[in-house]
């Protein structure tokens, strides 16, 4: 459309740079030896290795799912390196490779002391190994465990063994099963009874080494009456080859507990012709185990060439609540098939799904959702709203809502809209002195505000900037 838009669209990916640090990589491909290598590298107990091998045995018998509304060439799993880690072992911030610190600075990751004032504790994952964890001591005082999953496996095996794969079973799906076999690191958090976590917990994932798929495993447990808000932000350097990212996130809330999980995903989306970019095949699921507990997912997905994820809630406890707030942008040649599943099992359970899909340029966006009411879920309620915004003539939006209600007392509402940013709207705004980019940003932010309002404040500011950045030049 307009030339100003083209100009902005063609700007290079703003976070696209690659840090050259010595990495220790596993040879390409996947077999039992590689899994043993990973497990040994991470100095894991035997039970963990056995578990991984069991997952691998399942995975080799599984087939890659094809039902998602996305298209990509077949992934050659024998051409991926499943492990890559910075070489040194690091005890304190001073010992961290200055180049890594520089990378974090470019990404604005708050590792320094001053950031403590902002109340953010960061478990920074550089490629596959957690380089450093900050503020653990402060959290320790309250009995909160916040560390890498590798550390948790070593130091808190009872919690890990009790809850790992209790929400996403090992063989749940192809990518989750792959993750179970090869996951390299990730975050672990445990909030003890009746503790409100005093700060937002954050992790920054970053894929860095060439050809290394990243397989994060996150496990968060909120014990009775506790509360935690966890922020996950992502960004990756620019590169040509597609990278596979297959993470698994499991959340567990016990009685009266609440977890708020927010994500900003800004991985390299590839170029306009669909070259490069991250494949983001993620399984995120929470289980409201206890009565009156709550899990809330908020996501702003602007990056990745292909996104395949359905953050879900299993509402087991009576009166438990699940929420899903999502903004997914597909511009360039990005594809997203995303949505949520709300499985109502307990009585008086309620769930809310608010999904905002934005498609621009050659982007394709699909909402896929399932609301399932089991016979036991008396008086369950769900409200679903999925809206699509189209920008330009070459993009696409699809909606696949599924409802499966087995209890007649359930109350379900579903609303959906599709709209388009028109030239008339842009002209109207321009006659008021608002530039085209500003106008697009206004309209998009207006479209997404129900979701953005759910983000923690600082995260929301970042998300708004990201939305404008992702769509600059894409309208016209």
């Amino acid at each position, binding site marked *: 459309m307009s030339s100003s838009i083209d100009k902005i669209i063609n700007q290079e990916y703003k976070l696209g740079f690659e840090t050259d640090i010595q990495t220790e990589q596993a040879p390409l491909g996947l077999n039992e030896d590689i899994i043993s290598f990973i497990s040994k590298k991470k100095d894991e107990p035997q039970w963990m290795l056995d578990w991984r091998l069991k997952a691998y045995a399942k995975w080799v018998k599984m087939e890659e799912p094809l039902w998602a509304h996305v298209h990509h060439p077949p992934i050659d799993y024998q051409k991926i390196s499943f492990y890559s880690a910075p070489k040194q072992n690091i005890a304190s911030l001073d010992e961290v490779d200055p180049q890594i610190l520089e990378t974090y600075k470019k990404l604005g990751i708050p590792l320094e002391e001053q950031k403590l004032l902002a109340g953010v504790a960061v478990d920074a994952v550089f490629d596959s190994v957690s380089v450093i964890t900050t503020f653990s001591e402060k959290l320790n005082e309250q009995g909160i465990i916040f560390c890498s999953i590798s550390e948790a496996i070593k130091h808190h095996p009872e919690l890990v063994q009790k809850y790992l794969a209790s929400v996403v079973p090992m063989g749940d799906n192809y990518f989750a099963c792959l993750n179970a076999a090869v996951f390299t690191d990730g975050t672990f958090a445990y909030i003890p009874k009746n503790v409100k976590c005093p700060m937002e917990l954050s992790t920054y994932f970053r894929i860095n080494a060439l050809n290394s798929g990243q397989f994060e495993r996150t496990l968060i447990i909120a014990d009775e009456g506790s509360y935690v808000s966890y922020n996950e932000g992502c960004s990756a350097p620019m590169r040509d080859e597609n990278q596979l990212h297959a993470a698994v996130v499991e959340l567990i809330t016990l009685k009266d507990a609440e977890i708020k999980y927010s994500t900003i995903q800004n991985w390299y989306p590839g170029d306009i012709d669909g070259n490069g970019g991250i494949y983001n095949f993620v399984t995120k699921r929470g289980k409201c185990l206890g009565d009156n507990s709550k899990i809330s997912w908020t996501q702003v997905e602007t990056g990745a060439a292909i996104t395949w994820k359905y953050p879900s809630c299993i509402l087991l406890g009576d009166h438990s609540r699940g929420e899903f707030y999502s903004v997914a942008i597909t511009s360039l040649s990005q594809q997203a098939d995303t949505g949520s599943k709300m499985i109502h099992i307990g009585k008086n359970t309620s769930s809310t799904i608010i999904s905002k899909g934005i498609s621009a340029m050659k982007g394709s966006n699909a909402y896929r959702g399932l609301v399932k009411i089991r016979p036991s879920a008396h008086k369950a309620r769900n409200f679903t709203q999925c809206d699509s915004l189209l920008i330009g003539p070459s993009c696409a939006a699809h909606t696949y809502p599924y409802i499966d209600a087995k209890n007649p007392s359930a109350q379900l509402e579903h609303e959906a809209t599709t709209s388009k940013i028109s030239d008339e709207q842009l002209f109207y*705004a321009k006659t008021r002195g608002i530039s085209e980019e500003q106008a697009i940003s206004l309209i998009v932010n207006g479209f997404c505000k129900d979701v953005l309002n759910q983000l923690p404040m600082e995260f929301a500011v970042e998300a708004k900037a990201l939305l404008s950045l992702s769509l600059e030049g894409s309208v016209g």
Partner: protein
Amino acid sequence: MLTIKDLEVSIAGKEVIKNLDLEVKPGEAHVIMGLNGTGKSTLLKAISGSHETSAKGKMNFLGNDLLSMSADERAVEGVFMSFQNPIEIPGVNTIYFLKTAINEQRKSRQEEELSSPVFMKELQEKMNFLEIDKSILQRSVNVGFSGGEKKKSEILQMMMLKPKLILLDEIDSGLDIDALKSVAKGINALRDANTSLIIVTHYNRLLEYVKADYVHILHEGKIIKTGDSSLAKELEDRGYENVLSSS
């Protein structure tokens, strides 16, 4: 203030305006009348910089070559157009839209942003003046507005943005007499020796409230007759056909 010479405007490849000349001096109000489809709205769109129009010729506004500028650049220089059918923008609050517009214009002129209290105070004064219901501020731009609310909202935006050249495209259509009076009051409040108007209308009744200096009859893309405000009255009394055939 605005000098138009040899203007040709086409929409979707079709020539709508041919060899049009128009001179608007500071403080003047010009009225454009004519049959449907003669290019009245097209002229305003060409002046405001619509994406639909492609224009050739000369269009000078306070030393700026308008035809080389984008619509938002023209707005920053002081051109404002009130739409015949104001466009709906779902999800964007009217108050936020207006504040963004004012501050974007100020930013472009290297002026400081308007503080919220100053903005709110002025906004409230103008809304009282125009008798606009406060509820429109929190509603999305033009979404679900009545015809009267839409037009009043256009005038409110105009008063807040304080343009130098005001283009009004059928601001009087679909208004009851009370709303028409409010709209006229708003227009007159902005008029001074440095503010000019180009008004497109089918009816003489607006001109009972807004004093016009010139009335032009546009026919088949050309101005074929110019007079004072009595011409509008004559058109209303005798109809276009009679006026055109007698000229």
